[in-house]
């Protein structure tokens, strides 16, 4: 299940979806908006996506993970729009028979998402704003 949404991420619904009779392990990663980056107070984050490509790139990552690990169910949900501190920006959930696979696949997915999926985050501070990673 891959979702790109402006709505708040519903963790309970995702956990429900990830249930499977054969699953012995479930790893769930949540990326949350922190209240500071390098000690500079963050007021909010603004996430923007190239929707079509973001979804197809997330699908590629899920397919690669499926090839490498015996995944029973997965959920990838990325938020976009304006997020305040404490809000969930991304949810990755992986259910497998054994725990090593769940941890590894979950981490692979979030690590790769951060490298290849066309989603951009602007940090808005009380005294300015910056597109993350954009400058040398």
């Amino acid at each position, binding site marked *: 299940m891959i979702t790109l949404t402006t709505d708040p991420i519903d963790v309970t619904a995702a956990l429900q979806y990830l249930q499977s009779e054969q699953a012995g392990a479930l790893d769930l990663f949540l990326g949350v908006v922190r209240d500071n980056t390098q000690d500079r107070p963050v007021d909010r984050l603004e996430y*923007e*996506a190239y929707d079509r490509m973001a979804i197809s790139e997330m699908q590629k990552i899920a397919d690669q993970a499926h090839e490498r690990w015996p995944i029973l169910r997965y959920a990838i949900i990325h938020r976009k729009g304006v997020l305040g501190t404490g809000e969930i920006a991304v949810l990755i959930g992986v259910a497998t028979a054994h725990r090593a696979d769940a941890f590894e696949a979950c981490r692979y997915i979030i690590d790769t*998402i951060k490298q290849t999926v066309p989603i951009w985050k602007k940090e808005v501070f009380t005294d300015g704003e910056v597109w993350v*990673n954009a400058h040398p």
Partner: protein
Amino acid sequence: MNTPVSVLLFGITRDLTGQSALSVPVGEGARVCDLLDQLYQAYPPLAGIKSLLVAVNGEYAETDQVLGSKDEIALIPPVSGG
């Protein structure tokens, strides 16, 4: 003869150009790198971005990929999702 291609802009590229889409007249057989050269000339601040990739029809493109007028082209500045 120049044909226009449409280019979608996101994140910092949208902020630097003040546009979310551009119509760029490129020469017949223009490649991704030719488009970038033109954009850097028109909008010098784009050169200050750490790495600027181009997607064609929703896929990352090599710099020598030839562009067509019906392609959906997008500038992909460094991503920062998650």
